[in-house]
């Protein structure tokens, strides 16, 4: 079994990348593969629970985050410096890494896929 990092970096309301990245993470977890998530850039907005998208806007991926623990996805990382720039981050399950830890994160996995 390999350990996998799914890196979400795309705007969740601009295209399907975040949604399809999360889908892959959930499938990996369903197949009992070790999988962690990290979130950066425009994708950070999925951490805000003040979203109320309609069907034209797209899916509310923030609601998916609460279900991650049921899939045994326990690690969701962000970089502290990026989090500071977005004050409305509100989902509580994140682990905040200092810049150096964030940079080292990507070398700790056998596979990293970016969406």
């Amino acid at each position: 079994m390999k350990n996998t990092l799914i890196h979400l970096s795309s705007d969740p309301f601009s295209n399907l990348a975040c949604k399809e990245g999360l889908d892959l993470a959930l499938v990996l977890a369903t197949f009992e593969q070790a999988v962690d998530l990290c979130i950066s850039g425009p994708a950070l907005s999925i951490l805000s629970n003040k979203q109320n998208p309609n069907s034209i806007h797209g899916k509310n991926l923030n609601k998916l985050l609460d279900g991650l623990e049921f899939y045994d996805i326990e690690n969701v990382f962000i970089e502290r410096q990026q989090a500071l720039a977005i004050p409305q981050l509100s989902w509580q399950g994140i682990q905040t890494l200092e810049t150096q830890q964030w940079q080292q994160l990507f070398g700790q996995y056998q596979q990293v896929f970016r969406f």
Partner: protein
Amino acid sequence: MQYALLVTGDPYQSKACHSALRFIKSALEHPTAQITGVFFYQDAVQIGNSLTQPPRDEVNLLAAWQSLSEEHGVPLYLCIAAAVRRGILSKDEATRYEATQFNLAPQFQLEGLGTLVELMNSTNKVIQFR
């Protein structure tokens, strides 16, 4: 070394499908390299649309992938959920969705993400092209 490829970039908005093809062609020149499969996900699934008609003075990317698969036995998988969402249907899926047409190109198979997980676990390295 065994490689599997995860291709996620749109064939028209990115060079992911082109670069993946070039990677495989180079890898196959090395006697120790083996390509266990290519899994197309996200907008990359559009590569499997048999109805595409590229201009005659441009590369026919679909045909290039098909001949690579035929000549070297490289399996080409499209994520079924991503493909069906984008209107790439096999005959079976067209029947399931009561569509009158199907357009999945020969050499491509629709598979679930579980097939990608199997590829990951049976291959030394999975490389993403996005």
